[in-house]
């Protein structure tokens, strides 16, 4: 009974379905060969087979994770620094940089990164990390600033040191907002990492690029399907984590 209820819960969960679809396609895109062959009868090769989709998915996730970790670390550190008493004077400057930076499309960052460090995974990770810092930084500032002044005063008045106030009060209360920032950063990153194939990194964007240059619509659809599913899974997973950590509710 209990097990049945769990299965039922699982079956109603959109995240579970999206994850299952993603894993299925990653392991066995072959299963869809008849479908693509029927839809695109003019194509000799209706299925992308240069690398397995599982490999592409892992490499894609690897690039996004590396960039996401770097962006989260840098964004958190900078956001915490400018909300401290000693760093406050840099807050307006950082906020300006953040809003200007947000208007630059990530592709532009990629285009600048390649001539600087050459082709491969590194420029892709650098570009994604640079662009991904901004949402995390903005969310960290917003989250910490949203802690009511009265709570801050109580924390100080009761004798918390600056780091204790940060760790015991500000970060826990800011966590849902910060998670939302990381979510934005990672989801943008998943989409942009597909374009990172132009910089020579192997990602789920590889079939899309090959398909676009070789007029193979089936490749484009296969790549886009994977990227889309991955983005949806990541987005829903973060949303769930955010709700779980929202301790103010």
């Amino acid at each position, binding site marked *: 009974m209990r097990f049945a209820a769990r299965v039922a819960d699982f079956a109603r969960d959109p995240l579970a379905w999206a994850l299952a679809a993603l894993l299925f396609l990653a392991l066995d895109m072959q299963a869809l060969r008849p479908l693509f062959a029927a839809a695109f009868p003019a194509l000799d090769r209706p299925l992308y087979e240069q690398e397995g989709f599982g490999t592409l998915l892992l490499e894609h996730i690897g690039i996004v994770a590396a960039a996401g970790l770097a962006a989260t670390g840098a964004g958190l550190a900078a956001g915490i620094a400018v909300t401290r008493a000693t760093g406050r004077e840099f807050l307006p400057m950082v906020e300006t940089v953040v809003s200007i930076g947000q208007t630059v499309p990530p592709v532009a960052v990629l285009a600048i990164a390649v001539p600087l460090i050459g082709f491969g995974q590194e420029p892709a990770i650098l570009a994604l990390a640079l662009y991904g810092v901004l949402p995390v930084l903005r969310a960290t500032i917003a989250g910490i600033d949203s802690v009511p002044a*009265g*709570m801050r005063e*109580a924390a*100080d*008045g009761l*004798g918390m040191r600056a780091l204790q106030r940060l760790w*015991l009060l500000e970060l826990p209360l800011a966590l849902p907002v910060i998670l939302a920032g990381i979510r934005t950063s990672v989801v943008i990153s998943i989409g942009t990492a597909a374009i990172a194939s132009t910089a020579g990194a192997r990602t789920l964007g590889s079939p899309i690029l090959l398909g676009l240059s070789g007029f193979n619509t089936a490749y484009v659809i296969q790549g886009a399907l994977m990227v889309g599913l991955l983005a949806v899974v990541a987005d829903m997973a973060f949303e769930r984590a955010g709700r779980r950590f929202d301790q103010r509710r």
Partner: protein
Amino acid sequence: MIEFDRVGKSFGDTIAVEDLSFTIPGGEFLALVGSSGSGKSTTLRMMNRLVEHDRGTIRFQGGDIRLRRPEDLRRRMGYAIQSIGLFPHWSVARNVATVPQLLGWPRARIEARVDELLTMLGLDPARFRDRRPRELSGGQMQRVGVARALAADPEVLLMDEPFGALDPVTRRSLQGEMARIHRASGKTIVLVTHDMEEALSLATRVILMDQGRIVQDASPAQMQAHPANDLVRSFLGRGPR
């Protein structure tokens, strides 16, 4: 216990407090009364170094407070404010235990102290210990705020308009609680309020402030019998003669 010696404080060009001298002996219940901008809150907040004074000397138990680390000073002075500032992600018990935990008390001692305080402030520990602040009424929250301020048995309790946002009934009952706690513990209490009636009924001494200076410093009986000027009279609810 606390000694102000010609203390002054300015914010930019504005003088908040000027030439303030008074001594609070141990066990006194002092009320700082004044309208907003009179400098009463600044005076309170200088005692635990939430505001640093510019001129003069403030001593706590004989020692210059500037020579102590602010955190150490604050952990020995309870602090309760109007906005209460309970931490919403912690249970009532964890909130009350804030300072004992900062001081590294053993767990059993903290738990016993939390239950003792909740009981003292009229909150049944079994019912309230594990609640979150959002599940409490305004009066219950302020009771938890006062319990938190008293948790590590501080020598002094500083309170800034702690009953300001409460309805009259809850307010009366908490005021009664404070008077009882003062009598029972003999703690030094400094209360900031704009409500002269509250000051007169609770405090053993009233300092009325205006524009950063002391207008009158007297016991409640003296102040009522001999108001120093028309301002004091108006605070007492009587018109000028």
